């Protein structure tokens, strides 16, 4: 009984090695397809964070309305950013100029105070690069 089960537990070495090699290749192929289809996030510039910080910085406390002259860039160290507020065909820009074409972008709809009594729907765009 014990002899028989000991023999049964033995593994044929060649099929086992081939099996491990095939599995490694398969998982490797899966990983390369995964990397191509869904790029790993979190490695690009933090455009969403810069967007939130910039909207907060340009908004008076207790209000939700963006004031264009308060527009400034709040980028983490090591990154540069351009911020643009657009209302119709008017726009205001702050921050570094000449963003590279591969800069990370994010945007949000914001209400913008054009004159003290007039608030119009607008859009705030950020471009962030390192």
């Amino acid at each position, binding site marked *: 009984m014990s002899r028989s089960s000991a023999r049964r537990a033995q*593994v044929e070495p060649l*099929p086992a090695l081939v099996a491990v090699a095939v599995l490694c290749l*398969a998982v490797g*192929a899966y990983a390369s*397809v*995964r990397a191509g*289809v869904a790029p790993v996030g979190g490695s690009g510039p933090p455009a969403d964070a810069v967007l939130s910080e910039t909207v907060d910085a340009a908004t008076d406390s207790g209000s939700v309305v963006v004031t264009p002259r308060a527009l400034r860039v709040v980028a983490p160290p090591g990154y540069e950013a351009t911020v643009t507020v657009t209302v119709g065909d008017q726009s205001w820009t702050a921050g570094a100029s000449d963003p590279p074409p591969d800069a990370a972008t994010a945007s949000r*709809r*914001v209400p913008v105070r054009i004159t003290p009594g007039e608030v119009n*729907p607008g859009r705030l765009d950020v471009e962030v690069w390192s």
Partner: protein
Amino acid sequence: MSRAISTVLDVSLALLLVSAAVVALVTIPGGDRRPPDPDAAARTVLASTATATYGPPEDRRSVSGRVSTLVGQAAVAADRGTDPAFVDAVEGAVHYVLVRTDGNVELFARAGDSTVRVGPRPPVSASVAAVTHEVDLRNTTATVTVRTWSR
């Protein structure tokens, strides 16, 4: 020998699962179908200002204010059945704000049993997000709902 056959079966099954995972990764569309942030859309529309002009030419009246206040007042006026010209003028002024808002936004204001609705309706296939705000008017309140959806 039967151990070797079992190994081949195991590896075949594992390969089948891995290739099914690859096929699923490639074929299932991963596009971003989430609707735009409804809070940002609501803030943008409701905090904007608009001017409703109404009445006969010899007695033109003009009311300016935040969109949230204007549509709330229009819903109350519609509920009381007073001043239909004011309701129409507010609908027109708010529609102009929505046109200038980038994207798809629809707005409802409800007071009592009446509803004032402005903007396009979302298509059936769209993924829609909405937020509702309570608007305080002088003696009453109205609820204002903003809906937005992905293109």
